[in-house]
């Protein structure tokens, strides 16, 4: 073993087989050399397995957006180790194109990034950049637009600026989904949508996750949607991971959640209250329908 190999062996940790994202001791400082230096991430250890639906929550400025931007190298690793789908992002020159095609990133208010003359062109922008040929591009764009619930033939030659707010959001979403990413990172995908729009976006994300096995990371401020959709919740606080556990477990700690200025989801509060009265439902019951069914089932078996 040469000297170089030895050094490398020390800094490269073992990445678990099933991990889509693996971060170890990840740190990031903004404006490192000035008086305004701010530690945005400190000692982040986090593993996200393939096919998981993970929600990232935390107060404004807790580092969650900084963290997710690391995932397709929009922010480069300053110190620590980060591996996304087998690519070592701490390396000096990772293959950015391949990485960005596999990690779809939906920013806050993605409709503000629309630019092309037609919807079709806009959805194809990413595909074109990644070198997909023309015929295939149109087919993939069609698939993506249908996936987000838009009528392809009707919308493809419209200007994206003539659409309604909800439609714009979906076109922007289709622009990312068209690339068929293996990891979907979303920064508040439902912000500013009406309740129905929110439900539609969430059910789309859920079906991508459950049917196509897409790994989903969702940053959100809405604890209700986090509670009902995520397999796991990661709470960021002052650039550190404060909690990392399944939603039911997390929101049992009502006092701690409120101490972090986060809200306890309505259904979690309801189930917590039931538990205080001795009625314990399975941890998997988190939506209104699931809880209703579970309570009903309990009643049908008296004094079980």
């Amino acid at each position, binding site marked *: 073993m040469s000297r170089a190999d030895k050094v490398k062996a020390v800094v490269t940790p073992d990445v678990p087989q099933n991990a889509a994202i693996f971060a170890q001791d990840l740190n990031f400082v903004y404006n490192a050399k000035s008086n305004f230096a701010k530690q945005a991430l400190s000692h982040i250890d986090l593993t996200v397995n393939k096919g998981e639906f993970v929600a990232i929550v935390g107060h404004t400025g807790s580092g969650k957006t900084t963290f997710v931007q690391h995932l*397709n190298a929009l922010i480069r690793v300053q110190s620590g180790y980060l591996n996304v789908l087998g690519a070592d992002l701490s390396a000096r020159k990772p293959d950015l194109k391949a990485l960005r095609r596999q990690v779809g990133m939906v*920013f806050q208010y993605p409709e503000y990034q629309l630019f092309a003359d037609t919807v079709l062109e806009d959805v194809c922008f990413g595909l074109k950049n990644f070198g997909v040929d023309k015929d295939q591009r149109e087919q993939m764009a069609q698939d993506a637009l249908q996936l987000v619930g838009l009528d392809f033939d009707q919308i493809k030659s419209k200007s994206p600026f003539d659409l309604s707010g909800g439609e714009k959001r979906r076109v922007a979403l289709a622009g990312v989904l068209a690339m068929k990413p293996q990891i979907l990172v979303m920064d508040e995908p439902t912000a500013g949508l009406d309740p129905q729009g929110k439900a539609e976006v969430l059910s789309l994300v859920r079906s991508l996750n459950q049917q196509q096995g897409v790994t989903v990371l969702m940053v959100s401020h809405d604890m209700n949607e986090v509670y009902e959709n995520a397999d796991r919740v990661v709470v960021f606080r002052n650039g550190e991971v404060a909690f990392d556990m399944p939603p039911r477990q997390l929101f049992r700690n009502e006092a701690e959640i409120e101490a972090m200025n986060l809200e306890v989801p309505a259904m979690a509060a309801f189930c917590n209250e039931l538990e205080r009265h001795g009625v314990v439902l399975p941890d998997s019951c988190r939506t209104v329908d699931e809880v209703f069914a579970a309570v009903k089932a309990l009643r049908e078996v008296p004094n079980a």
Partner: protein
Amino acid sequence: MLRDVTFGQYYPGNSFVHRMDARIKLVLTLLFMVGIFFVQSFAVFGFVTVFLLAVIFISQVPLRSVLRSVKGIVVLLVLTAVLNVFFAKGATPAEQPLWSWWKIEIYANGLKQAAKIFLRLVYLVIGSSVLTLTTTPVDLTHAVESLLKPLRVIKFPVHEFALIMSLTLSFIPSLIEETDRIIRAQKARGADFDTGGLIKRAKAFVPILIPLLVGGFRRAEELANAMNSRCYEGATKRTCMRVMKLGWRDYVAAFVTVAFFAGIFVLYAMRGSWGGVTWLYF
């Protein structure tokens, strides 16, 4: 990457310079900018350098932050200076060129002139960035409004002018932030701004410029609506929350600066009559 834009960026602090009245700072900066054109020799540039360094030291703004504003346009400044080398003739008709080729002649005087022009431009930029680094955009706008007040006599819309200025200044950071966000969003979709020829690179900016323009108009409209819904009317008598008052700092700073530049004007006016003191006129 866009966060490095220093021009017009306030460096928070509580120094002597920060606490001065913005109007005085503005007037003194203008005096400095005019005065610098009366500096004719390297020796006097030396005095100005000391003066400028003293002001920067008192303002407690790190020299690095001040110099960053020069970094952005250094190419332009060097180009201007280099062009001057080619166009300047000898100080006297008798002066021989140092180097000549075809119709191009370079004189020692040309090199001297170019160096002075470069210094003058650099000092202009540094002087104005000391102002913007130590004064918030809001204070600066108030200062402009207050100084332009006499123009009301000729029906010049002073308040509206100041409003346009403050809106422009307040839009700059938010537009920078938005540009940054759009760039990241398009990069995430595989956009590539760093490779390819000139035309390809220019084309790569379309996906940034269009959302930026659309966003700019959107913001402008939102702001106009917000102002309308609060019944904003510019022309009526408005008062300021913070009334600007001159303090001892302003008198001291004004006295020192005016005295310094009075000296420079004297040196300029008396050039030629101080034949013995040649080092002053190198």
